[in-house]
């Protein structure tokens, strides 16, 4: 894999690696992709199986369900003056 392609993947996946990690993980990934390439030798004319079973298209009624447990959401968050802190835009 070209270095620029590897860097693109890191950017898309929002991952940062040290140079040592980069070298190690890139080598692992190249080996795994090489193995995945063995699929080229397998023929399959089947339709893609997105699930192992047939999942029925069951739809729920479009109803409003009131959510009241606001404290449960706040418990996970860092708060400041009643606002939830997050990264700046």
């Amino acid at each position, binding site marked *: *894999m070209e270095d620029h392609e*590897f860097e693109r*993947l*890191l950017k*898309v*996946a*929002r*991952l*940062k*690696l040290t140079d040592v*990690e980069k070298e190690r*993980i890139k080598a*692992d*990934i190249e*080996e*795994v*992709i090489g*193995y*995945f390439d*063995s*699929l*080229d030798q*397998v023929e*399959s*004319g*089947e*339709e*893609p*199986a*997105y*699930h*192992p*079973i047939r*999942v*029925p298209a*069951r739809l*729920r009624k479009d109803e409003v369900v009131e959510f009241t*447990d606001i404290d*449960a*959401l706040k*418990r*996970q*968050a*860092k708060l400041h003056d009643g606002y939830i*802190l*997050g*990264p*700046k*835009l």
Partner: protein
Amino acid sequence: MRSFVNEFLKLEKPKGYYEELVSEISMLNKEYHAFTNINSKMIDCAEGSIPFSSKANICVKGFETTAGSKMLKGYIPPFDATAVERMLGSGSFSFLGETNMDEFGFGTFGLNTETPARNAFGREYVAGGSSSGAAVATALLKYHVALSESTGGSISTPAALNGVVGFTPTYGTISRYGLIDYANSLDKIGVMARSSGDARIAFDIVRGKDRYDTTCSVEKINGNKKTKLFVVKELMEKTEKRVKASFSSLLDKLSSDYEIREISSEILSKSIAPYYIIAMAEASTNLAKYDGYKYGLQYEGYNKRYNDFFTEARSSFGDEAKRRIILGTFIRSESVKAKYYTKALRIRALIIKEMSRILHEGFIISPTIPIPTPKISEAASLTPLENYAIDIFTIPPNIGGFPHITFPYGYMDGMPLGAQVITEQANDYAVLDFVSDWEEEFEYRYKHDVGSL
């Protein structure tokens, strides 16, 4: 039918029984790291309650649920997973604690986490993964069942390495609501126990439709006994010779009740690559939501630029998680999607077709893993690809959503040996019955019996 749960219900419990149980398992946990947290409130549970544990990726209200990841440190779910809710609602079970695992389920040996669980038969050996703690806890506690989860073998492998029964049901039988996703089209909650009877009791409690999981749609479960046992030649080829010899002696024992036949199926030996492609593609999508402030880990670099905030926060993922995120992102790239992802889905369809045909005629039986239990130092030196190859027997039923069970059938150098039996979708009771019959002939051994009466 052997059932420790039923035995427990009949026995009188001495005063202070649960206090003693919690104290003893807490002490042993310092050596084995089976639990990531133990519910001290268990000592106040209703008299007669049977302890159950749940893997650390199954949400339990009020208990830190980390899925073995630093990214989820401090995450305390405000709700119970459906499976947990049903166990508690049964009135028979009380929650003992959450069990250790590979980070997000990414592992065969239980080593991809901060403090790995140790094998219940020898602490220098791997516990197996990813439901490492569930298997160790089951091997330590006499009266207990473990809710665990399998994506590609995470129930079978650790169950086999710790000498317990590991049951993975048909995909879509048990609700995944409250399960921290690894790969949605592969994840299945299942049960570990010391007998197939106990696994069946828990299975019947937790299974069934759930409005919160539309894929949970398999309601009718059968128990159609098969009289043939198939051994797939291509899967056995890379099995270590001592494991092969022990497995042959198991087949000899079973030959009085079953017709044993070797069959050839090239496609089943090709299942590892499509499995990992599907699993990594789905995992990389699922792990996108861990951003350092919505769940668990609270990254405080609020002065960072918007994208840098997430990139810095996500450096807390372990190596294997990073590898799978990068590989999954690559596989989903528009330029190669058809070559890898769509192709893998087409091969999955082929595997399902082939296995359904074979399993209509009989069970597939194999060792659970192709090598003797490795020491931690040995497993830690394997490359990722060598690790993935260990899953050769557990991936076919998992990629196809077929119910399977692993059970102890012998001991080699003091370590348990496990075999796996697979059946048709929705024929789950048949594999539970198979092991129930086996248990009439064979007594499982354990080094610890915490909570015995």
